[in-house]
């Protein structure tokens, strides 16, 4: 009984773990803390697994748990998040370290809520409505955050783009 439950759980969460880790990584900006955070998330997910009604929505559920764990961890100062003004990109972790440095800088310039929303959408593939539900915000507010976040990213990554967008 427990074995089949475990097998079902592993099959459902197994494919999401790398994206879950990536989400944790960009929240903490540290690979060790990211793995700890992903671990805590999977443990909590296992405990909550019997109560999950919609097993197809497991990725969103995992991301939501991780986001809450992250918020709890930083609130209790259990998690040490690399300060925004510190460069913390390790080249071996990235296929394109130069791009990663630019994106890291651009993400740090965003507000925390916009950053969460953007990471959830790009890494998790969630819709505005799903992100709104996970973050406890309205769908309109999430749309606004994502629009502004992408505009800001464009300005940072392609300085000409912001001007073009305005002119367009």
């Amino acid at each position, binding site marked *: 009984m427990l074995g089949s439950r475990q097998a079902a759980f592993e099959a459902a969460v197994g494919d999401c773990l790398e994206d879950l880790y*990536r989400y944790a990584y960009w929240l903490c900006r540290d690979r060790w803390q990211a793995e700890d955070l992903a*671990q805590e998330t999977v443990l909590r997910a296992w405990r909550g697994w019997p109560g999950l009604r919609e097993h197809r929505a497991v990725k969103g559920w995992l991301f939501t748990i991780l986001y809450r764990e992250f918020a709890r961890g930083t609130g209790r100062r259990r998690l040490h998040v690399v300060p925004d003004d510190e460069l913390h990109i390790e080249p071996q972790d990235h296929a*394109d370290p130069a791009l990663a440095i630019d994106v890291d800088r651009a993400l740090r310039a965003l507000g925390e809520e916009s950053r969460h929303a953007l990471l959830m959408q790009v890494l998790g*593939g969630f*819709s505005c409505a799903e992100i709104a539900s996970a973050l406890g915000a309205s769908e309109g507010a999430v749309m606004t955050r*994502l629009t502004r976040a992408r505009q800001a990213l464009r300005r940072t*990554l392609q300085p000409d783009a912001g001007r073009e967008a305005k002119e367009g």
Partner: protein
Amino acid sequence: MNCLEFRRVALAEPRRLEAEAARHAEQCDACKEFLVRALEDEARLARALRVRAPEGLRARLLDRTAAARRSRGILALAASLLAAVAIALVLAWPRNDPLALAGIDFVVFEEAQAILEAKPADPGELRRVAAQLGVALPAQLGELRYIGPCPFQGSTGQHAVVKTAFGKATLMLLPDRPLASRAVASAHGLEAVVVPAAGGSVAIISGSSRSLEHIEMLLKSS
């Protein structure tokens, strides 16, 4: 949908354009170009965020979860065993029998007054009640210091205070209180044993457990 609305939607969810927005992009070259660039930016962003996951991440996360689950299972089992032992101890612990406890209360709260108010007693009455109960009161019990009737829980028994080799003890012969099995209680520094007798029971109350055992043994062997 106008161009401003389109760009807002395209920046909010570039990979999930609604039909209306897609139609607008087909009709508006500037917005089509905007969308192409938005999708290119999105692809670059996604590529940059695809940080390499550590080697063996999946196995580690799932194995540690299984290990934590097992240790939680062991803890839960230990907690269940502990609870079972605690319940067994509570159940096995000798509980105060109400009748034996009433005997102790009589000694603590009423005996002194009973002795003070006692009229000259008839030893024959004590022997008669003892015989009625099928018990003998051998001389080895000790020195009888007091004999008298005692009101006890709505009926009257015979009350005797005995000085044994191990200390003072009170006997209560209770002809109207039949008992199925031996009962015990402990309170106020006193212990009580009530033993079944023919047509009633005998309560023995003492501060000394040896005195109690001595009297109980003599009554049983009589």
